[in-house]
């Protein structure tokens, strides 16, 4: 082992990544180590990517972990674990919750309906040489009293692989959390310890694997009978894809035909029956990843 140990905690804003990093740093301090930690606050908190680099040893210089240098990676969210995996040593400890937080940005492709999110699949970690724990930390946390204990559960799994005494962990956790949640945090930590000690097995995903695309792709054409349109603007306003506009004679027209998903809101809501949506049911294969 190198003289400086590195643990990377990652997740999504609001999951408690920073608190988990703080607890680990204080545990290392209590064990007599020098410790440094790095994270980023601010804009990333708004549902974005959150990470906490924790390094401890006799004398720590860089607070940041280099690529392939983390001794352990703790992911509070599945896709974030995959994102940061390149920071983990090939034989490092991979601990990930199976929670999947799909960001709004994953739902923007309304043409191919491709969901930009890696579905839960433990097989992608099959080539990892170190220990791998994928645990339903969210479920365990809920059983222990609250979904917000996910970070504590995963710290419990991590603690199996670090040399710190478990009572130091528990004292530190209690110092960092609100008094009324202290007991359930200790419970969650112990549940995590048990999961970390148990033989690693393939845990089922929290939800069924997500489909990447519906079987049939939408394909539709909007026809507007200009003579019936009185320019009320309703169709323009309701179109979720912003396909339509009023032309300079205040008659609705198609501005972006390719963006039409065939939802028919314009047709349903036109007071003058001036809009017709014709579906072209093209049987397209679903195979978009």
């Amino acid at each position, binding site marked *: 082992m190198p003289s400086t140990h590195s643990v990377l905690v990652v997740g999504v804003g609001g999951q408690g990544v920073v608190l988990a990093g703080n607890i680990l740093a204080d545990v290392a301090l209590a064990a007599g180590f020098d410790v440094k930690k790095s994270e980023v606050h601010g804009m990333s908190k708004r*549902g*974005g990517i959150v990470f906490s680099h924790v390094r401890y040893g006799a004398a720590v210089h*860089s*607070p940041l972990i280099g690529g392939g240098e983390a001794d352990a990676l703790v992911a509070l969210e599945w896709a974030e674990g995959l994102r940061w995996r390149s920071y983990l040593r090939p034989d490092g400890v991979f601990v990930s919750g199976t929670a999947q937080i799909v960001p709004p940005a994953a739902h923007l492709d309304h043409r191919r309906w491709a*969901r930009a999110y890696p579905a839960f699949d433990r097989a992608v970690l099959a080539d990892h040489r170190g220990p791998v724990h994928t645990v339903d930390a969210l479920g365990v946390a809920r059983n222990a009293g609250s979904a917000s204990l996910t970070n504590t559960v995963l710290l419990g799994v991590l603690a199996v692989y670090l040399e710190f005494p478990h009572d130091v962990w528990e004292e530190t956790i209690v110092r960092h959390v609100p008094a009324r949640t202290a007991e359930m945090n200790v419970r969650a930590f112990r549940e995590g310890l048990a999961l970390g000690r148990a033989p690693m097995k393939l845990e089922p995903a929290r939800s069924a694997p997500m489909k990447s695309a519906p079987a049939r792709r939408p394909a539709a054409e909007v026809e507007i009978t200009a003579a019936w349109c009185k320019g009320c603007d309703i169709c323009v306003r309701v179109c979720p894809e912003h396909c339509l506009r009023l032309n300079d004679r205040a008659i609705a027209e198609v501005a972006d035909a390719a963006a039409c998903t065939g939802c028919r809101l314009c047709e349903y809501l036109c007071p003058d029956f001036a809009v017709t949506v014709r579906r072209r049911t093209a049987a397209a294969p679903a195979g978009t990843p």
Partner: protein
Amino acid sequence: MSATAPARRVLLGNQAVARGAYEAGVTVAAGYPGTPSTEILEALARYEGVYVEWSSNEKVALDVALGASLGGARALAAMKHVGVNVAADTLLSAAYTGVGAGLVVVSADDPGMHSSQNEQDNRLYARFAGIPLLEPADSAEAKAFTAAAFELSEAYDTPVLLRTTTRISHGSGVVEIGERRRPARRGFRRDPAKYVMLPAHARARHPILLDRLDRLAEEANTSPLNAVELRDPRIGVITSGIAAQYVRDALPEASVLRLGFSFPPPLRCIRDFAAAVDRLFVVEELEPIVEDALRAAGLRVEGKAYFPRTGELTPDLVREGFVRAGVLTAAASPPVPAVRAMPRPPVLCPGCPHTVPFMALRQLGAAVAGDIGCYTLAALPPLAAIDTTLAMGSSIGMAIGLARSGAPGGPVVAALGDSTFLHSGMSALLDAVYNRTPITVLILDNGTTAMTGGQPHPATGRTIRGDEATRTDLVALCRALGVEWIRVVDPYDIGATHRALEAAVAYPGVSVVITNRPCVEAPVKIRRPPFTVAGEACNACQACMAMGCPALLWTDESYEGRFKVSIDPALCSGCAICPQLCPTGAIVMSPREPAPRGRDGASADA
């Protein structure tokens, strides 16, 4: 901090700066929230015996700190790098006046732009203003250097720039906790020739400033803040700040000169170091400031040829630079498979009151000059409703210019938050009124400075310590500025918001629309019972998805080839916006949950 606190604690760099200032007897501290500087004042506000304020902007903050310094109290002003631009007017002349008691200006830079609009290197301000520059490299130094900065400020009668970066400010390290030095009250000494910058006085002060710089360079040459570590004489590295830590890890055997007191550059110290090594490198984040200074001094150095000038340095980039320089051999690249990048940009929160106004602006086809705040995220799809974002308070002035350019065919709207409006937007609104430029100003009043974590401001009605304060009335303020058309609207009411903005852009003069819902995250989390999607009624039209709400997700079910939508009850704030968008009435209250009070959110029509 209680007296029983352990002597060694893990502190954020920002908390360490605050601790250092506290122990140095700081009496007045002022700033404006800005990532990554915000926690400095928040930490200081937890100490007794220090007057701490959120100022209305950074220039005011520095004026307050300078005034306190002239009044004989040690003072600190803290801001992010772009905040120093706002305060620069004061800073450059404060270098002429000098100080009373110690004055430390903390600039928290953001290389890599984690939460900023640019990555300017504020070390240049030290040279520009002619003031000393200290650059801590971790939390322990952040505390020690802050205390040293006060001493230096008083010894040389100058403001001192303490420059951190995100990795220092938001990095943590072990700090020894000490005692507070009793603040010495020097009192205010009248000295117009020094403090009244009439041209005649200022002319006399400029040579004093230059002489002071010469003396400071001499101080820097022997300062313990510049640490020479002679090891292997073949490679010498001059570095500062966080880069020093990466260098230490990448080249543990190399000789290193760590510049903690880097301006004025300690050239004699640097020459001695250069003479002791065969090959001399400079590793510095962003601009080649030290490198250029060394070249100008006739030294042979290598630097930006190997290390990037943009973005943050990282341990990997420093190592790779030394590999390219032939100092290190390339490590076997880690055999970890690359994963397809999944985008996860920051987003507006579920229930964010900024969402609907931007949907309305997009419908209006308005040219939208945006500003600095959470709402800048409305520039991203699916809202995609902001055309420009530049600097704090710039939206209104830019909207005036856009309108005067004659270019946009449609209406011109400036959109900015309440805190940004009070920071520097209101002077531009005055300009619009004064010069009769017909623009619409949308003030997104959520009662807080949300982006930086919910700091109070003059229209919040609280101080940084949570004490009650005079609450600025935005409507009365706009009226006093001369705006005749003002409407306050509930941004959770889609129809009302659309109608208000339509009427505003139709008004032939300056119009102001103010939204009035509080931030759902700060100061308190606002949660109502979540909504749910009656799956059989959803026709997957995606109307609700146009909000970009994180609680709205695609299910695995589809309708006519489009994914149906569900609501994550753990994320839904119960704001009742999406039910107004749903044309099929599929979004309903969760069964078994009591109805939220005061609002019928189930009307299907916008």
